[in-house]
């Protein structure tokens, strides 16, 4: 065992890097769910963002444009979901799952010509970290503030808590939800682009490997609170990185315990959160997953 080989600052930096994709995706999904829409297509939007971002970065040579392209790709894909569920009133769970499958296939198709290429280096590092890490944290603060203290946040929450009442007050429920879904798609796309441009720097089919599902779980884990999403993302990402680092340092703890630690901590945190049952249920948007039509 050689714990001295682990530099805590470097470790924390790689923890932040590992957490950023799920953080971004989970933040987007949080806003979507706050408006009462359950989009299970996060994985599909992430991987679409990963390839769109990668392709744009390769074509333009600019990582910044790449991230923009990733966000756009995720948002455009999410608009399919928005159209199906908000206009045609399809089932949100089924549509979300279909969106994931569609996104995985679409990304593999777009990605055909980009396998084996290297993205342009993102260069600018602050404290050894790229700007996206800080953007992720900034986004947490922004969403927290917006949901809590702004008129926009109030409207979003109203739509998610009681769409009939929001409609009666004259808010365009469907339009607001579509906008939220597109925002969620953009965030997921951004998270995906972070994977393909910075964390792994390459494009591989299926490279998100379930990150979208972890992001979905994070939202519930965080009981729809932005700062808890940040905590949860660091916990999930952090434990993986810590686990790998401890193994590399040769710590004599059986790998099985290290691997299961994040599930154990998840259970522990969920138990702690749900101790106060009424508070936990209060946080869940009341209209989550329900259909809305102005006639009803």
């Amino acid at each position, binding site marked *: 065992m050689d714990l001295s080989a682990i530099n805590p600052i470097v470790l924390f930096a790689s923890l932040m890097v590992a957490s950023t994709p799920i953080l971004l995706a989970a933040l987007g999904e949080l806003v979507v769910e706050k408006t009462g829409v359950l989009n299970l297509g996060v994985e599909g939007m992430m991987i679409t963002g990963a390839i769109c971002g990668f392709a744009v970065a390769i074509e333009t040579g600019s990582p910044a444009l790449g991230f923009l392209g990733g966000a756009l790709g995720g948002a455009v894909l999410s608009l399919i979901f928005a159209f199906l569920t908000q206009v045609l009133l399809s089932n949100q769970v089924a549509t979300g799952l279909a969106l994931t499958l569609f996104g995985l296939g679409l990304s593999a198709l777009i990605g055909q010509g980009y396998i084996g290429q290297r993205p342009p280096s993102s260069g600018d590092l602050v404290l050894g970290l790229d700007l996206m890490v800080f953007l992720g944290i900034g986004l947490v603060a922004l969403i927290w503030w917006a949901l809590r203290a702004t008129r926009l946040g109030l409207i979003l929450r109203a739509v998610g808590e009681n769409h009939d009442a929001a409609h009666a007050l004259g808010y365009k429920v469907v339009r607001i939800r579509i906008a939220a879904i597109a925002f969620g798609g953009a965030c997921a796309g951004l998270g995906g682009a972070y994977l393909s441009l910075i*964390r*792994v720097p390459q494009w*591989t089919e*299926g490279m998100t*490997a379930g990150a979208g599902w972890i992001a979905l779980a994070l939202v519930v884990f965080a009981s729809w609170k932005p700062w808890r999403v940040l905590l949860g993302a660091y916990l999930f990402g952090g434990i*993986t990185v810590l686990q790998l*680092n401890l193994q590399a340092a040769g710590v004599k703890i059986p790998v099985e315990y290290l691997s299961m630690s994040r599930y154990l901590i998840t259970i522990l945190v969920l138990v702690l959160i749900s101790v106060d049952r009424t508070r936990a249920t209060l946080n869940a948007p009341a209209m989550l997953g329900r259909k809305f039509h102005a006639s009803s």
Partner: protein
Amino acid sequence: MKIKTMLTTAAAALGLATAAMAEDPTKVGFIYVGPVGDYGWSYEHNEGRLAIEEEFGDAVETTFVESVPEGADAERVLTQMALSGHDLIFTTSFGFMDATMNVASKFPNVRFEHATGYKRADNVSTYSARFYEGRAVIGHIAGHMTETNKVGYIASYPIPEVIRGINAAYLHAKKVNPDVEFNVVWVYTWFDPAKEADAATALIEQGADVIMQHTDSTAPMTIAEEKGIVAFGQASDMGNFGPNAQLTAIIDNWAPYYIDRVRAVKDGTWESADTWDGIAPGMVELAPISDRVPADVKAEAEAMAAAIAAGEYHPFTGPINRQDGTPWLAEGEVADDGTLAGMDFYIEGLTGEIPN
């Protein structure tokens, strides 16, 4: 004729098709654990599938299902394949073993070929490559190339195939560099680029300057390139992902074997068998060794590969002790295939424990 009758009975028994089916081309199915585009393990199996199509043309029809999780899902996919009239099905990951056996027992007329496993039946063959021969060669190179004396090893699951690879690489690295240390990280996945990248980063941050992987994606190679260190490709030539980083790669070439087995089915000579081929018949190949490797080391590595191919040298030749110091192979003794196939111990000098 025999196949025709067998097929027809099978089809009739399932109430699926008519005798017309027997006229159809031989149907060969594949299931892959990762995507075809992993540019590693599954990619090479798919290359083998394409080689079958090229060889037999219209006389065969091949299908594949990619990214099949190991476990219950594999059984579902295999059942579907067996029901849809496949004559021969290749299941290309260790974790498909039980699913293959279960489905095979239900479809005695469908032939199965399971890669890297050890369970066989009348209609289930197993095949694998002696990757450890390639690992011995890259271990030799790694021992010479490391300056920090730390080699990072990204391992997937603690199964004999992976443990054998670690042992073979370590043994030969240690021979040329007694101070070398192997840091093994178990990631418990075959394909998760992000996790493999994180593992590579963790190893490099802790001083490893040579990365070996026994996972399927090219992510570790990309990270090695990014950080300016060296690495070895796994299953495929990963030179595209690490033009400076890749020293060489162990390439799995399944095509000749796949073509043989399909031909056996067509001829009616297919029998359950256990195939384990190495460098000699070309099932294991090495990518061209990079110029970063000094010429003498390169020559030694090539000589070692040639000696293994010629049967003059066995990578596991004694004296070798187990990790706890008890003797395993005496001076000049060569490991038998049985022990190798079930290898569940580290050799002396490796630190850390094998997870259960």
